[in-house]
Structures are given as structure tokens and as C-alpha cells.
């Protein structure tokens, strides 16, 4: 009897528990409103000590650490923009999700799945400080600390067999400090080619997930478990040194690397106009590609000849065949004074077919403006033969990827030896007594190399590269780099040393690449940044 009553008792307990759960669910969960209400925010000054104590662990980093910068202006901006941003993001998300859902539904015999509510809430993400790192490399590194404790309400309702089930995501909180690196820097807007994002620490994630109104995340233990999984998942993907790479623009295009060679053969000119008062003109041709900073190339001067024949060949480096234009200027050589312009002409490179020589007869014009009435007058003709030879993929000069790491030495480098590359980047705070027109002078094994002179500046930028081919490793050798200022006006002090450094090369051989700023000797505050690379064939 006792046995039966125990069995019945258990059965009753079983029935009762389901009833109880039902009633409990009905009373405590179903009847509770599932809406997310806007929290009311009181000014901080009115808060009691209890709230203030709760705040202490959340104090922004810029308050605690002087190396973090305050970003309250950005917070304010974001807060003002948030309602619009919220709508825009939700709209986009919905538009993306709808077709995917529509495609998936038939497989699972569900009538419909739709967003019942989709809003990111009234609380915008906040930046609790921004830290930037300055390195010698050409990159920007920043580390914002982002905290988003939002009140989003994302409710997805699924209908099947006449029943409706809802899944609701509420109170999402994400705290993370991503490191954002912008590199390489390029000279065309937006001035960087790629964005690298990686997380420095595991992010903090917290949220409420309500299944038919009941928050699964508040089941003791489950929350911690889920949180760990989420954290680990994210960490696996983006925790430093793993990075997320976003390409903004094609860096090779932005860097304007050479993509081909234009071979120019200047054949002859015909019926040139006379410019000199006595006798015929002394013509020569100057040519260059538009927007190129390289110096132009010149033919020889044909004295006293209005129909000169040159038959000289030149090659010009092409960086962008679709926009660059070859320019030809015919000048009249003069013994004294300025050389007169006799006429000019231009050929857009896009008119040329690669690898196919094209002989062209160009009419010389006075100006580049095609509508200029001055161009109506005949000024003679110039005959040239142009061949555009694009580089083959494999002979493409070093691609962008390799610029960061040390590339291989070119062929023909002796075994055991290598190529020593010195890049003189820039200097700062130079101070000349009489003048400051600095240039850099490298002295290595008695060989001297010079950079260009940058006029009248205390902070010159040279960005010039020098190469030395060596038979063996320069372990015990040193390189002297002097910064010298010259002036043609100051006759008493035409040259002045602004400082020098002696760099031991053992470190470069060991490290393959060193990019450092050095303090100049014999200078007050002057510093110079140079990059050394040791390229070996192995």
C-alpha cells in the first residue's frame, strides 16, 4: 500500500510540477511585460553613494590613465546621431535578413519567421578613452576602448503548426578594446589602404536571451557557460595577433608603382618656326610624362636646323597608362639667356597599344589648351615612334606586400654577401647656425652618397633609398651619416655640418631590418630616422 501511494505520490508530483511550472510561467513570466522600457537617467550629481560605488569599476580609462585621451565629444556626437543610426542599421539588417529567411523557411516546415521588433535601443555605444601609439613605421595605430551597454530589443517570431514562438534578445552589453591599425599610408585619399582590427583582450559579452518570454541566460551556470563560449569564439578569430583585415583601396594603385616602360624614339621635326634673329633656330626636344616629378629627358641640340633629324631613343617609366600623358616640348637652344619654346605636343598613353610601336606625326602647338586661338598658327611637326611595354606580372618591381618585410636580394648577389639598403627617411629639429638647407651624406667604405637638399627647413623629409652590394656581411663595419647644410648665398660659410651619426652594421645583419630614430651627435636636439635593410640571397 505504502508502495502504491509512493508511486502515486511521484506521479502526482510529476503532474503537479508541470502544472506548477505552467502556473508559475503564467504568473511570473507570461504576465510580465516583455517590452524594453527606456531607462530613466538621473543626473550624476543626484546619485547616492551606493550608485557611485557601483560606478567605480566602470570609471573611464581617460580618467585613470593620462595616456588615454577623452572622447566625450565623439560620445556626444554618437548620442545625437544614434536614433538615426539605429533606424538605418535596423533597416539594413532587416533587408539583408529577409531574403535569407525566405529562402530557408520551406526547408523546416515553418510558416513564417519575422522580426517582430528590431531596435538597437536608446543607448549608443560609448568611447571610454582613446590611445594612440606612435612608431617609426608608416602606420597609424589606435586603441579605442568601446563600451556598449545598450537596451536593444530584437524579437524574432516563428510560426509553425498554428503556434507562435518568440526569441528575444535584450540588454546586449559588449565591452572591447580593439586595436585598429591603418596601413600602409598612401598619398591619395583616404590616405590609407587597409584597416587591420584585432582585439587586445577577450571582450566582455553579456545579454539576455528570452525564449517565449523566459530568459535562458538567468538559469544559473548557463550564462557563464555561454559567455565563455562566445568569448572564446571571438577570441579565436580576432584576438591579437590574429587580425581582421579590411581593404579600403588597392594599395599598388595608390602607391603609383611603375607598371611599364614607354620607349620613345624622337625621329625628326619638320617645318619648325624660326625663332632666332640671325640664322635658323637650334632645336632640341624635351620629354616627360605628365604629373611625374622625375626630370625630363632631352635630345641633343641640332644647330641651325629647322628640319632636324635626331633618331634618338629614350625610355620613360610609366605608372598609370590610363591617365598619364606623354609631353613633348621643342625648345630653341640659346647660348645666353632663356631657351625659347618652339612648340609642344602631347600623346595620351591610353591611345597606345601595348608592345606595338606606333609612329606618330604630331602638330606642335603653343599651349595645351585645344581651344586657344594661338594654336591655329602652324608651328611645325614632330615625328616620334612610341612603344609602350607593360611589365609582365613576374617582372613587376616589388609589390606592395614585400615592402614591409625584407625582400630577397637580386640575382647575382655573391653567396655570403648581400645587399645593404639604406633609406634616409627624415630628420627633425635640425639647427644651423647660419643656414638650414639640409641634405644627408652617407659614407660607407669610402663611398659617398648624397640625398637631395631640402631648403630652409628644420624638419626635412628625404625618403631616399641607397644600395650597396657587399661581398660579405659587414659585421664589424660602421656607416657614417652626416647632415650638412649648404647655402650658395652665404659665401663665408657655404657648408655647415648639422650633426652626424655612426651606425654599427652588426645589428642590421642580425635583424635584417632596423628602422630607428637616432639622436645626432654635435646637434642640440636633432634626430634622424633611417631604415637599414640587409638583403641576402638565402
Amino acid at each position, binding site marked *: 500500500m505504502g508502495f502504491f*501511494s509512493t508511486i502515486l*505520490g511521484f506521479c*502526482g508530483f510529476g503532474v503537479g510540477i508541470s502544472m506548477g511550472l505552467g502556473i508559475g510561467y503564467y504568473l511570473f513570466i507570461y504576465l510580465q511585460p516583455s517590452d524594453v522600457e527606456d531607462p530613466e537617467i538621473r543626473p550624476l550629481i543626484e546619485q547616492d553613494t551606493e550608485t557611485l560605488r557601483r560606478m567605480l569599476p566602470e570609471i573611464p580609462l581617460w580618467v585613470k590613465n593620462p595616456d588615454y585621451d577623452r572622447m*566625450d565629444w565623439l560620445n556626444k556626437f554618437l548620442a545625437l546621431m544614434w536614433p538615426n543610426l539605429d533606424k538605418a542599421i535596423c533597416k539594413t539588417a532587416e533587408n539583408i535578413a529577409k531574403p535569407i529567411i525566405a529562402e530557408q523557411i520551406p526547408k523546416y516546415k515553418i510558416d513564417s519567421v519575422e522580426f517582430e521588433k528590431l531596435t538597437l535601443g536608446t543607448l549608443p555605444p560609448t568611447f571610454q578613452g582613446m590611445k594612440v601609439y606612435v612608431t617609426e613605421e608608416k602606420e597609424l595605430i589606435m586603441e579605442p576602448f568601446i563600451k556598449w551597454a545598450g537596451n536593444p530589443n530584437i524579437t524574432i517570431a516563428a510560426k509553425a503548426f498554428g503556434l507562435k514562438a518568440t526569441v528575444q534578445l535584450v540588454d546586449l552589453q559588449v565591452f572591447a578594446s580593439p586595436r585598429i591599425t591603418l596601413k600602409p599610408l598612401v598619398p591619395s*585619399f583616404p590616405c590609407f589602404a587597409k584597416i587591420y582590427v584585432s582585439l587586445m583582450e577577450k571582450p566582455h559579452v553579456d545579454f*539576455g536571451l528570452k525564449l517565449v518570454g523566459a530568459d535562458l541566460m538567468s538559469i544559473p551556470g548557463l550564462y557563464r557557460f555561454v559567455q565563455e563560449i562566445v568569448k572564446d569564439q571571438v577570441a579565436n578569430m580576432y584576438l591579437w595577433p590574429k587580425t581582421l583585415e579590411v581593404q579600403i583601396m588597392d594599395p599598388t594603385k595608390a602607391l603609383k608603382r611603375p607598371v611599364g616602360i614607354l620607349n620613345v624614339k624622337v625621329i625628326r621635326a619638320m617645318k619648325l618656326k624660326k625663332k632666332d634673329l640671325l640664322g635658323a633656330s637650334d632645336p632640341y626636344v624635351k620629354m616627360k610624362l605628365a604629373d611625374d616629378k622625375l626630370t625630363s629627358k632631352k635630345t641633343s641640340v641640332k644647330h641651325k636646323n629647322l628640319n632636324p633629324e635626331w633618331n634618338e631613343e629614350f625610355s620613360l617609366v610609366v605608372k598609370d597608362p590610363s591617365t598619364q600623358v606623354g609631353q613633348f616640348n621643342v625648345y630653341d637652344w640659346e647660348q645666353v639667356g632663356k631657351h625659347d619654346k618652339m612648340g609642344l605636343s602631347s600623346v595620351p598613353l591610353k591611345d597606345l597599344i601595348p608592345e606595338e610601336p606606333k609612329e606618330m606625326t604630331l602638330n606642335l602647338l603653343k599651349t595645351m589648351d585645344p581651344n586657344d586661338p594661338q594654336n591655329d598658327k602652324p608651328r611645325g611637326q614632330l615625328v616620334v615612334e612610341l612603344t609602350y611595354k607593360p611589365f609582365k606580372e613576374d617582372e613587376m618591381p616589388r609589390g606592395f606586400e614585400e615592402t614591409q618585410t625584407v625582400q630577397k636580394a637580386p640575382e647575382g648577389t655573391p653567396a655570403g654577401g648581400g645587399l645593404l639598403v639604406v633609406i634616409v627617411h627624415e630628420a627633425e629639429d635640425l639647427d644651423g647656425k647660419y643656414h638650414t638647407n639640409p641634405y644627408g651624406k652617407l659614407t660607407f667604405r669610402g663611398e659617398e652618397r648624397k640625398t637631395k637638399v631640402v631648403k630652409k627647413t628644420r624638419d626635412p623629409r628625404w625618403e631616399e633609398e641607397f644600395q650597396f652590394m657587399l661581398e660579405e656581411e659587414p659585421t664589424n663595419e660602421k656607416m657614417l651619416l652626416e647632415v650638412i647644410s649648404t647655402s650658395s648665398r652665404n659665401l663665408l660659410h657655404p657648408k655647415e655640418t648639422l650633426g652626424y651619426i655612426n651606425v654599427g652594421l652588426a645589428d642590421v645583419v642580425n635583424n635584417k631590418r632596423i628602422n630607428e630614430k637616432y639622436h645626432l651627435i654635435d646637434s642640440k636636439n636633432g634626430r634622424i630616422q633611417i631604415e637599414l635593410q640587409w638583403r641576402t640571397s638565402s
Partner: protein
Amino acid sequence: MGFTSGIVMGAIFGVAVMFGWSYMMSYRRTKRVAKAMVIKQLASLNRDDLRKICGDSFPDWISFPVYEQAKWMNKQLSKLWPFVADAATMVIKESVEPLLEEYRPPGITSLKFSKLSLGTVAPKIEGIRVQSHKKGQVIMDIDFRWGGNPSIVLGVKAAVVANLPIQLKDLQVFTVIRVVFQLAEEIPCISAVVVSLLTEPKPKIDYTLKAVGGSLTAIPGISDMIDDTVNTIVTDMLQWPHRIVVPLGGIPVDTSELELKPQGELLVTVVRANDLKNMEMIGKSDPYVVLYVRPLFKVKTRVIENNLNPVWNQTFNLIAEDKETQSIIIEVFDRDIGQDKKLGTAKLPLIELEAETEKEYELRLLPSLDMMKIKDKKDRGTVMLKVRYHHFNNEEQLAALEEEKRILEERKKLKEAGVIGSTMDALDGAASLVGSGVGMVGTGIGAGVGFVGSGLGAVGSGLSKAGKFMGRTITGQSGRKSGTATPVTSENGSSKPHQQ
């Protein structure tokens, strides 16, 4: 028995579990909401808040200026600068050159960049302030400072000199840039950006001009002309309330709301002036008054000869675009042979006016509107005005807008026809009547002759000499300009037709 008690026990247990769960739910929810609140509050702190949180251990390195500092941005900017400078060169060349053409002073046939590089010194962002006065608009004020070393060479072609390269050196720009973001509900959430320079503090743009391989004296008055051109571009295009509206990618949006447009009309009666300074050797000054809100639209009174207490009683219409920030500028000149002299100037901020009520103002004349430049405190007399401000309704606004367009269109046509060299010519036509009075004297010398930037408040004695000289040099060449180059100013002194 056992069954019933089992049910009861089970039910109680079940309810208890559910209760426990819901308790956990609300507990965790309150915790999360509290945290969200805390984070929200910490996103924008002020000094008092921080003092309350930190108590005695308030960090010394923290301060709360009106313009929040952005050191990190400067660090990044200085690193990025060589690349930005390279990239910006092309953009600037393309956007500024047409502008120079538009505002090119008369007597100069071409004004172009022959060299442009932005130098090695990056601009600094001294501070940023974000505010919002209107729903759907966010205003960002950026305190921008640039004491750079750009190398800018302008190729100037004038009628008399073939080509003169002029170098702009030691450029310094200190200004507060106001950027207004118009928000939208689609990505990227900003439909248009409005850029302008704040008037207060006044933008400071300094530079020195140097001729390359020649002397600036080759074209007399050239430096003043360039000063004037730069000044006019800045004041008439960029300085608040003037602005540049840039619609942003993709979203079709009505930007007319953002553009500057006529807001109201001013009916100004120049009644009289008292105790003016005598500038002439023989007899007394021959005063007249020039009025404007925008330097592009100037009006002037007739000349009353030989009188230090002249009575004009002339009425003009002026258009106001922004009552909050604009002012009527009143300048009193003494008409003289050759170069007119400025007797004084005064400013009446429109914000002082009440709509639809006529009020009398007696204003003290000052030597210059720039308070920093005024050295002497000599009395220069007063000028009396009656002003009535009428706020436009929509139809009137449209009409005024059309009218403004028509005037500018007319000038453009004149320019195309070669009557005036640039839009600035027409403006200078007005200015020159004011500045040199050549046209007024009726000697038949063109009005587009004078280069005096009196309208820009830049008249110094040296400058007026240069202007005078300039006027003579160019006169012979610009004969074809005479007479026609003054579409703005006519004797009835109204730049707009009366609308009563």
C-alpha cells in the same frame, strides 16, 4: 491521497522554480540596466561629476575646456600629413582654381597655381565641441590651427605684365570651423555636410607675398589685390552665415533647407550724420554713405558737398540672410578727386532689431571695425539711421531668392560678354565707386578701375595710394569697361527692387 499530495507538492515546487527563475531574471536584468546606466552617465562627464566620483583623488591632468582637446588626433594627423598633403594638392588645385577665377580682381587676366605643396607642418586641431540646436542636425566646431610652411606659387597674369609668379609664404590659418551634419535615416546616416568658418573668434589668415624673380612693384597694388581676393572669398563664401553645402553620397536630399537664403528685408533710411571729420584742405568734406550686409550687394547714398553735418534721408532695401549673426556695415566716405577717404565706419548687428518696427539708431563712427586696430579715441562723429526689419514669408523669400539669382546671373553674362573680367569686377565696380569715386566724378573713367578694397575694411593710407596708382595704370586699358561695369549700384541706391 498520495496522488493529491504529490500534485500539491509538485505544483508548489513548480511554482517555486518558476518564481526563482523569474527572480533571477529580474535580478540580472536590474543589474544589467544599472550597468548600462552607469556607462551612459560616464560617457559624458563634467567637472562636478568627476569630483563627486573621485573625491579627493581628482586627477591633475584632467581639465574640462569648452573645446575638448583631441591630442590623439594631432598625433595621427602629423604622421599622416605627408600623405594627406600629397593627396590634397590635386583636390585643392581643382577646387580652388575656379574659385580664384570667379573672384579674380579686375586688371588681372589670369590667376592660377603654378606650384602647390602643403609643406611639412601638419595642422593642429586644438579642440572640438559638439552641440545640437535643432533636431536632426549636429553641429561640430573644430578649433583649427595651422602655422604651416606650404609653398604656394601663384601665376599672375596682368594686362601690363606678362606673367608674374607670386609666392605665398608663411601661411597661417587660425579659425574655428563649423561643420553641420544633416542626419538621415539611411546609411551613412549623414545626408549633407555644411562647412563654414565661425565669425567669433574671427578667422585669422596671415601670409606674406613674395614675387619670385622679380619685384611685387611690377604690378602696383598686386599684393592688396590678392589680399582682397582672399578676403572676399573667405568672408563671402565661408564665413558664417555663408557656408558650403556638400551633399553626401547616395541619398537624394533637399539641401535647400541648409543653403543660405534671404530671410528678411531691411528698410534702412540714412537720415543724417553729425560732426564728421574734416578731411579736406580747402573747404569741408563731401560725405556719402555706403551700406551693406554682404559685400556682394552694396548700396550708397548721394554725395552732399561741403558739409560736416549732412542730411541724406535716403532709403534703401537690403537683404538679410541670417538675423542672428549678420550686421549692417555703415561706411562714411569723403568724396575726393582720385582716392576717396574713409571718414569712419559703424556696425549695427541685426540681432538688435525687432521685426516690423522702425527704430532710430545713432551710431558712433570708428576708424575700423576691428577693435584691435583702433588706436586713437578721437571723435569721428555719428551717423543716424532708421531701420525696419521685415521677416519674409515663404513667397517673398522665393521672390528675393530669384532676384538674387538674377543679379548674379546678369553679372555672369556680363562676364561672358567680356564686359567685366570676373564676378568680382562687378563687385569692385561698386567698391570702386566707393573707394575711388572715379565713376562718381563723372569723368567717364570706368568704374571697374579701382582696386580699393574699402568694402573689406582694408583701406590703409599706403594701400589707398597703391589703389590710386593702380587705377591710373589700368585706366587706359580698361576703357571698354567704363560705365557698364556697375550693375549693382545706381543712383536710387537700391540693389533690389522695392517690394512694397
